[in-house]
């Protein structure tokens, strides 16, 4: 199957040149032009412009964060890669947004088109990005162009989803009012639906940005320039300090982008369509921004000397983390080595070994029947057939053992998530202070490139499935904590009050009310955690974690299109089956607990 695809594809590479080459050329030109023009502007002016814009749009607090970000970037001598990342992001986000909007519009037409778009978007997201890197570079070579394509494929789905959801959940009252006034369909779409879905679209846009930046750093693997390069390079040299410098810069950029594009910036009016800001505050912001920009431009022109090159600060590195991190790691490694070893043995013996034996020893027909039955109960008959065939297909592809290994790692990691991250989420939901404490940590964890902590993990835990499991657990924890927190906090306050009024203790309220009622949302969180764990399979393959990730990594390193496609397909199948099962469970629970489906969708 994979080799058949590989043959077809190789033919297309030759015969389809007329189709893809012009597109690639356009992309390349676009990116180069943008980067060149950015490089032409003096660094201080770029900094001043960006900070001014941030202040104007989001206020002084975020302006301060932007200032800190630039200070870090300039002091660690990462100006050039940062500019490249910015240029990359501008192009990638613009194109992903265009693609996502189109798909979303298409999906909102009717329920059939919605189903089609949803399926497409599911595949785009569940198919491991590493697996389509190879086909893309076969087509376009390496470098920013290929990276852009991969990033666009990866980042468009969230916007498509949210656009479609947003358009379909526009208050039917308002749409009806417009129709009753005699407005045409086009008018209703552009004059009513799109503006009213703008919140939802904006939230999708925010997601798209976050996906794009995650992929932009990953794409350093296929030759994208930008901050991913120092991170990968640092890791390659085992210069973790260097990698961390780049990683911190990335986190800064990501958090800034996130806050700027967030739908409800902190402190704004949640209910209002247009938060009515006080005019005076706006004026102060505008004045500061203008003063900052003008001052910087003037100073730059006056001091042309030291900034002569206009594209690089006149100093070398001022801050370097290499030394301190090196000593820290050495200290940890030499002092706690035995404890790390013990922990490794613990996870191996209690989680991975028994589960691995279980997954590989169960006969295939039992698995097929089991999966089909589960789907039949939770989702429906059609889904059961599809899932059953899917599991069979994994066997046919020859990915049975790999899939079992992957599942063992994921199951162990999710077990750890349930034991560690879920209680932390509960804790977050019970105390505002704990929540405030964890939020920034979760933000950083989710924006930090995963591989940044994967390689150092090897120092402590060695290579292999234990390190892979731990890395997977760490990556999959944030969504579980977030969703747990949200699920438990969003429970109908009246039911909680009724319970308190009946004299229930906080523990009783938690176990008898909050958890049962939040269960659908908790399931969504668990689903997210599992899907994220799946996505980690390739990353952990870099540190020798066995399973489907190895197949994809192999394909990447040996140019084996066939094996990559097969591995990718197997992963897609596993992910889709898991996703459907969890969604089915969530839906079933939600009919009992009466949480509306839209709410789940909105949270997802």
């Amino acid at each position, binding site marked *: 199957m994979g080799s058949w695809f590989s043959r077809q594809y190789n033919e297309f590479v030759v015969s389809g040149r007329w189709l893809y080459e012009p597109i690639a050329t356009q992309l390349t030109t676009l990116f180069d032009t943008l980067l060149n023009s950015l490089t032409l502007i003096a660094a201080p002016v770029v900094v001043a412009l960006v900070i001014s814009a941030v202040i104007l749009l989001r206020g002084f607090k975020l302006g301060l964060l932007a200032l800190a970000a630039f200070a870090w970037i300039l002091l660690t001598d990462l100006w050039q890669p940062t500019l490249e990342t910015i240029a990359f992001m501008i192009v990638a986000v613009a194109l992903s947004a265009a693609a996502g909007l189109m798909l979303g519009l298409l999906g909102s037409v009717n329920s059939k088109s919605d189903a089609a778009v949803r399926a497409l978007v599911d595949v785009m997201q569940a198919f491991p990005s590493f697996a389509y890197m190879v086909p893309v570079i076969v087509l376009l070579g390496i470098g920013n162009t290929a990276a852009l394509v991969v990033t666009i494929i990866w980042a468009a789905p969230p916007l498509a989803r949210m656009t479609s959801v947003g358009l379909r959940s526009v208050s039917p009252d*308002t749409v*009806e009012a*417009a*129709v009753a*006034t*005699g407005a045409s369909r086009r008018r209703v779409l552009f004059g009513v639906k799109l503006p*009213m879905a703008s919140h939802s679209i904006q939230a999708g846009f925010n997601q798209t940005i976050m996906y794009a930046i995650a992929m932009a750093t990953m794409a350093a693997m296929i030759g994208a320039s930008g901050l991913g390069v120092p991170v990968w390079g640092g890791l390659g040299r085992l210069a973790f300090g260097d990698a961390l410098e780049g990683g911190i810069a990335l986190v800064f950029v990501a958090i800034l982008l996130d806050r700027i594009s967030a739908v409800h910036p902190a402190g704004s009016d949640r209910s209002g369509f247009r938060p009515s800001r006080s005019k005076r505050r706006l004026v102060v912001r505008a004045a500061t921004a203008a003063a900052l920009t003008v001052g910087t431009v003037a100073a730059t022109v006056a001091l042309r000397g030291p900034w002569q090159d206009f594209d690089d600060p006149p100093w070398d590195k001022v801050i370097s983390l290499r030394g301190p991190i090196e000593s820290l790691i050495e200290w940890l490694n030499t002092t706690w080595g035995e404890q790390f070893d013990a922990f490794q043995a613990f996870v191996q013996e209690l989680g991975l070994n028994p589960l691995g034996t279980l997954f590989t020893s169960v006969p295939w027909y039992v698995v097929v029947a089991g999966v089909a039955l589960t789907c039949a109960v939770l989702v429906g008959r059609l889904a059961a057939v599809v899932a059953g065939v899917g599991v069979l297909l994994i066997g046919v592809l020859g990915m049975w053992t790999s899939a079992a290994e992957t599942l063992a790692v994921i199951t162990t990691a999710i077990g750890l998530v349930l034991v560690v991250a879920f209680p932390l989420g509960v804790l977050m939901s019970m105390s505002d202070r704990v929540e405030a404490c964890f939020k920034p940590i979760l933000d950083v964890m989710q924006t930090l490139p995963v591989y940044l902590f994967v390689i150092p993990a090897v120092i402590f835990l060695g290579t292999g499935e234990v390190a892979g499991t731990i890395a997977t657990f760490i990556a999959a924890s944030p969504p579980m904590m977030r969703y747990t927190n949200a699920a438990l906090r969003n429970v109908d306050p009246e039911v909680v009050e009724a319970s308190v009024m009946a004299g229930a203790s906080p523990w009783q309220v938690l176990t008898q009310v909050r958890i049962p009622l939040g269960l659908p949302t908790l399931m969504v969180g668990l689903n997210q955690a599992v899907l994220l764990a799946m996505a980690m399979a390739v990353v952990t393959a870099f540190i020798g974690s066995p399973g489907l990730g190895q197949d994809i990594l192999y394909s990447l390193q040996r140019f084996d299109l066939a094996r990559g496609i097969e591995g990718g397909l197997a992963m897609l199948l596993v992910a889709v089956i898991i996703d459907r099962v969890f969604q089915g469970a969530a839906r079933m629970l939600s009919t009992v607990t009466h949480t509306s489906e839209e709410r789940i969708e909105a949270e997802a």
Partner: protein
Amino acid sequence: MWKVYGSQASRYLEAVRAGEDTDRLECTSAVQGVSFDVEPGETFVVMGLSGSGKSTLVRCLTRLVEPTDGVVDIDGVDVRAMTRRQLSDTRRKDWAMVFQHFGLLPHRRVLQNVAYGLEVGGVGRRERESKAREVIELVGLRGVENKYPHELSGGMKQRVGLARALAVDPRLLLLDEPFSALDPLIRTDLQDQLLRLAKIVKQTSVFITHDLAEALKVGDRIAIMRDGQFVQVGTPEDIVLRPKDDYVRRFALDAPRAKVVTARTAATRATVVGATETIDEARAQLVAEGSTSVVVHGSTPFVISGERLRHVDTGRSLQDLRDGQFAVVSPDAKLWDVMSQMTSTGNAVIVRDDDGVIVGTVDATAVVMGLGVPTADENAA
């Protein structure tokens, strides 16, 4: 008119016609064989509990929901035969609708919301804004033209909704529970405003509500709907005093009767005499007509009870028998107003129509009887 929801809607109708059992078809029959006329200038109210099919009915009229079967004729045009284009056109020019949850465009200011219908209809900016300002004034919203909907209170939002509908000078105005999301005091305000407008512009409208008091207040005629069918159609008094079945009666029990029943209904016949006639003449006429009181006609008419007239000295003039103040009300006055007058004067009230003809009098007994409170036996039933 029929509206059946569900994929087997057409089969449903066939089954109904053939008298078959419809249970096995998975359909919701929201409107079932309803038929009615609305007179020009009339406010026709449809009332019923939640889910009784009111919204569906009114949406079928303008094909916001396609009727499954039936005829809709508005201003002599067969609505169901209209093309898409004609329909849009008519919606722009002739019909307007007010919604329970306002249905305002959150991203537009009040002025642009009100002008929306005109904008859709292709009216130029200046013209439509001046028209919008006019209507905004009419609904008492002057000064908020430049606010966004989320900056307004519920009552103000609904005024905007009303203004938007009125801005196009619709020939037919549809209102789907326009006030039910509002606080009682604000609701009363808006009902009064609507009544005032209805009087000024002689608006033809179909008004949906689930609140009987509201229906009685704004409706010229009321249709009580239940499970997709009209249980009773009639004037407010019909509904309150002559409920057709138990269902309507249960609603009517809580009705503010004093504000529904008219003086005409409650009035008892009185013998009318001129101020110059003698007491004897009046007495004779009273006996002949078998009425219980005499109204002495003149510029300030007054009432003499039969009892009093019978025991009074015949020598005196009728004029001498005037005892206190007497209010005069029109036959359409509600008993509430009659009682107001009675409380002020302490006397019976004279009912005189616009042509100066005395219809009768309403005394305390007539009020109590006129309110039509069910007897103790009926109550127990």
